[in-house]
C-alpha cells in the first residue's frame, strides 16, 4: 500500500495517490501531475515515482 505520509518530511501524501495513478494512466506527464497535486518537495515526489503496488501480488496467498 502507498505510504500514508512522506518518510522524510511527514506530509500526508496517500490522499493524492489515486488521482496521480489515474492521471498517469491517462498519459499525463508525471512531473506536471505532481506539481499540480501540490507535491513539490523531492522527498515526497520520489515516493510517488518509486512506489510498487504489492496488494495484487500478495492477495492469492492470504
Amino acid at each position, binding site marked *: 500500500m*502507498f505510504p500514508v505520509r512522506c518518510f522524510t518530511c511527514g506530509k500526508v501524501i496517500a490522499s493524492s495517490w*489515486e488521482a496521480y495513478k489515474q492521471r498517469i494512466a491517462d498519459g499525463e506527464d508525471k512531473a506536471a501531475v505532481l506539481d499540480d497535486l501540490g507535491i513539490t518537495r523531492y522527498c515526497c515526489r520520489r515516493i510517488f515515482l518509486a512506489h510498487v503496488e504489492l496488494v495484487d501480488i500478495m492477495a492469492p496467498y492470504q
Partner: protein
Amino acid sequence: MEIDVLELSDRSAKFILSNTTAAFANGLRRAMLADVPTLAIDDVNVYNNTSVLYDEQLALRLGLIPLVTSFDDFVPQDECTCEDGCPACVISLTLSVEATADEGRMVYSGDIVSSDPKVQPAEMNIPIIELKVNQKVVLEGVAHMGYGRDHAKWQAGVACGYKNLPIITIDGCDRCGACVNVCPRNILCLGDKFVEVSDESRLNCSLCGLCQDACEIDAISVTENESSFIFTMESDGSYTVNELIINAVNTIKRKASSMGDILSTL
C-alpha cells in the same frame, strides 16, 4: 522582532521573521515539529483482519492519519486529571468494512467512525487498505494526544524550516551577463546599466554563490542577513497553521516561564 507574512493558507505559511536570532527561529521550528500535541490513533484492538496487511502494518497506517484536533478540548493522558481515561484524553474510533463476494473495495480514512463528532480524519480520501473479495477488517482504534518528539504520527508541523534572508549587492558591474546565465534559479536579469534583482525573486535565492564565482571583476556579492529568516511551514491538517504557530509560541512561553521559576528557586 517583526513578522512579515508572504503566504498564508489553512495548510501552509511562508513569512519573514526579522530582528531575531537563529536560536529563536530554531526554537520556533522545533516547537512546531515536536512540542505541539495532536491526536493520533495509538492503540488498536483488531477484532477481524483478513486483508493482505498484518495487524501491525494496519495499525501504523491508522496512526499516521491526521485527526482534526482542538487544542483546548484534549490533553495527553499522563497530563490529564483523570485516573484511567476520560473523554478528554481517550477517544475511540471504529473501522468496520467488508468487501462483498463479487467485488473488492478500498478502505478510506473516511470510513473511520469517530465517537466524538469533533474528532475526524483531516482528509477523507487516504487509502488504508485494499480489500479483495470477502476480505474484511473490523477494529477499534484508540486515539490519544501525544507529542511529535515521541512519534511522527503526533507531528503536526510538516517541513518547517527557515533560511537566512539573502542580500545581493551589485557594485561596479560591466553588464557581461555571466552571472545571469549561471544562476540556477534565474533570479538575476540584465538591466540597462547593470545586473538587477527584483525584491520578490531575491527571496528565491538559494545562497549558492555561483554568481559570485562567475563574476571575474567581483562586482556581485551574496551574503546572508543573519538576523532575518524566511520561514516556511506546513500543517498536517490536525490544526490550521494559525493555530499551530500560536500553540507553538505558547509552548515556548510556558517552557520559558517554568525555566524562570526553577531559576528563581535556586
